């Protein structure tokens, strides 16, 4: 095409500016626009905060949670009532078989008690002497099993896993009894002398506390020692378990609990409280997140109404622009782009508020802040980016859709 020396190619190559076109798009001071922005902000904030809190709870409650492996371990025993007092309240083989058959039960292990007498003294360090009960259980059911937790016949040192609850109780009463308080670390250095005796004689062992257990309220010795001791001192090899542990995916399973109630089994409710609290908290936070999604959807719907109104208002101008040769694609992109700063602002503001709430959460007394990073989790960042891209995409789609109705 013949052109009179103008314009130099550089000028023609300039991208088309939207600035002069913008006044033709009549946006108006629309209430629904601001409501839409507000709603979007609230929704995004709810979603981001609930995601971060979900992760916080997850991380906090798995750090010192008995449910490390994804299973709950609950202890059950037969409920002692006035009627069955004095009777044999140990679990029979039939009881165990019935429990094993339950679909919710992934494994059971009886706590085997000693059938011989055990007397413990704490050596010279602590002037203390008492009759003891010992128990043993399958190693898979213990939360903390150090490699040293083994015993072979002939070995004079018996490793013991001590209930951390017992340690706590001990530390409460120790000062009144003029006994020293013990930390979890020092307890391993306490020498305990175990005098085991039965109808077949007696023998002295050295007890050594090798670990503390949060899960099992007992003094645990290796199964090999318990078997040997029961046989050696009292000649009894039958298992008389009055307590058993159940390994289950969900200790709060209503069917499992109702079965246990039916059988009159007593269940250590306190141990499952932890997972129950976690479940409740995570359910609350998830609900909050779902609510956030709902609010975002509503806000986008409100926004689409606003967009329709705006485009309907500017219909004549837009039609004329198309008639004059403006590309519909370019118009849609340009119109949609005007919201980019608003969306960016909303997402960044929501991220900042989420970060502030996260920092405040870390200040809470029950939160051990050392376990949690002060920075938002990467998935929250990812979610924010996804939300931003998604909003822009939906917005562009809406604008294109509305524009295409014009011609």
């Amino acid at each position, binding site marked *: *095409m013949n*052109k009179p020396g103008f*314009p130099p190619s550089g000028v023609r190559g300039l991208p*088309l500016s939207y600035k002069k*076109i913008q006044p033709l798009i009549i946006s108006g001071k629309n209430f629904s626009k601001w409501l839409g922005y507000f709603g979007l902000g609230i929704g995004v904030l709810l979603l981001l905060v609930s995601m971060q809190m979900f992760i916080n709870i997850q991380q906090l409650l798995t750090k010192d949670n008995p449910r490390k492996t994804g299973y709950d371990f609950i202890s059950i025993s037969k409920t002692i009532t006035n009627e069955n007092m004095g009777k044999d309240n140990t679990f029979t083989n039939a009881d165990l078989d019935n429990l094993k058959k339950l679909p919710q039960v992934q494994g059971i292990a009886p706590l085997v008690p000693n059938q011989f007498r055990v007397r413990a003294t704490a050596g010279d360090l602590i002037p203390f002497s008492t009759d003891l009960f010992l128990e043993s259980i399958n190693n898979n059911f213990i939360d903390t099993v150090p490699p040293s937790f083994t015993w072979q016949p002939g070995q004079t040192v018996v490793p013991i896993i001590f209930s951390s609850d017992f340690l706590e109780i001990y530390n409460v009463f120790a000062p009144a009894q003029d006994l020293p308080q013990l930390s979890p670390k020092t307890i391993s250095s306490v020498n305990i002398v175990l005098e085991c005796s039965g109808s077949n004689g007696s023998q002295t062992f050295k007890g050594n506390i090798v670990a503390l257990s949060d899960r099992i309220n007992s003094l645990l010795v290796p199964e090999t020692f318990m078997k040997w001791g029961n046989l050696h001192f009292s000649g009894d090899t039958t298992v008389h378990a009055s307590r058993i542990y159940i390994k289950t995916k969900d200790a709060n399973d209503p069917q499992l609990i109702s079965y246990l109630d039916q059988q009159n089994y007593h269940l250590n409710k306190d141990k499952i409280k932890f997972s129950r609290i976690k479940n409740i908290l995570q359910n609350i936070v998830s609900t909050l997140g779902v609510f956030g999604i709902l609010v975002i959807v509503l806000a986008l719907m409100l926004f689409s109404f606003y967009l329709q109104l705006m485009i309907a208002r500017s219909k004549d101008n837009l039609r*004329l622009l198309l008639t*004059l*040769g403006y*590309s*519909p694609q370019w118009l849609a992109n340009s119109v949609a782009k005007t919201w980019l700063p608003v969306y960016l602002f909303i997402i960044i503001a929501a991220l900042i508020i989420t970060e502030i709430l996260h920092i405040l959460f870390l200040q809470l007394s029950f939160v051990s802040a050392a376990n949690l990073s002060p920075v938002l989790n990467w998935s929250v960042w990812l979610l924010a980016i996804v939300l931003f891209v998604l909003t822009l995409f939906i917005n562009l789609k809406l604008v294109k859709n509305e524009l295409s109705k014009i011609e």
Partner: protein
Amino acid sequence: MQINLQEIVPDYIDKNINESQVWNKNIVIKKTEHVHIVAPSGTGKTSLIHFIYGLRKDYTGSVSYDDINTKKLSTESFSSFRKNKLSIIFQDLRLFENQTARENLEIKRMLDPYHPPEMINEMAKRLGIENKLEQAAKTCSYGEQQRIAIIRSLMQPFDFLLLDEPYSHLDEVNRKKATTLIYEECEKRNAAMIFADLKPIDLLKGEKILML
């Protein structure tokens, strides 16, 4: 580029079209050609211009740009033709009423600048509306608006200029000035002109006259 009109018959037409030199005929309009379409009002001049520009599709036959049937063109492709191949002066002008005359011209000019911005002043001066440039289009008289529409059509590159009764509200002197300007601009671009009016206009010379 050339425009082919093949056996176009408007859907709504009810009169005898055998006499027409346009309807139901094959017409080829090439670059540099000047075609003057003459017809009394109400016989479909504006329809024909709109068919060619692609604003209406209620006809049988086909309008093609080279060998592209315009009925098959997307809005997106139309926009690229309107950007630098086809320019138009509408009978009903179609200005942005709330924008100033200059803004109206600039919106068209910047889409594909054929002239520098100063040319707006120069052309406005030649047509006697230079003091109306900063005025909102709706406050200009119809004659002034018509001159804005004429200048707007000359802001872009084009191969074809479609004019639909462009002088209806201009006096003799302004009509002459506008015709001279339009001729100059078409010549610069080697463009064709498709000019629709009520009666043959004496100002035009050597046009191929088609009676609708």
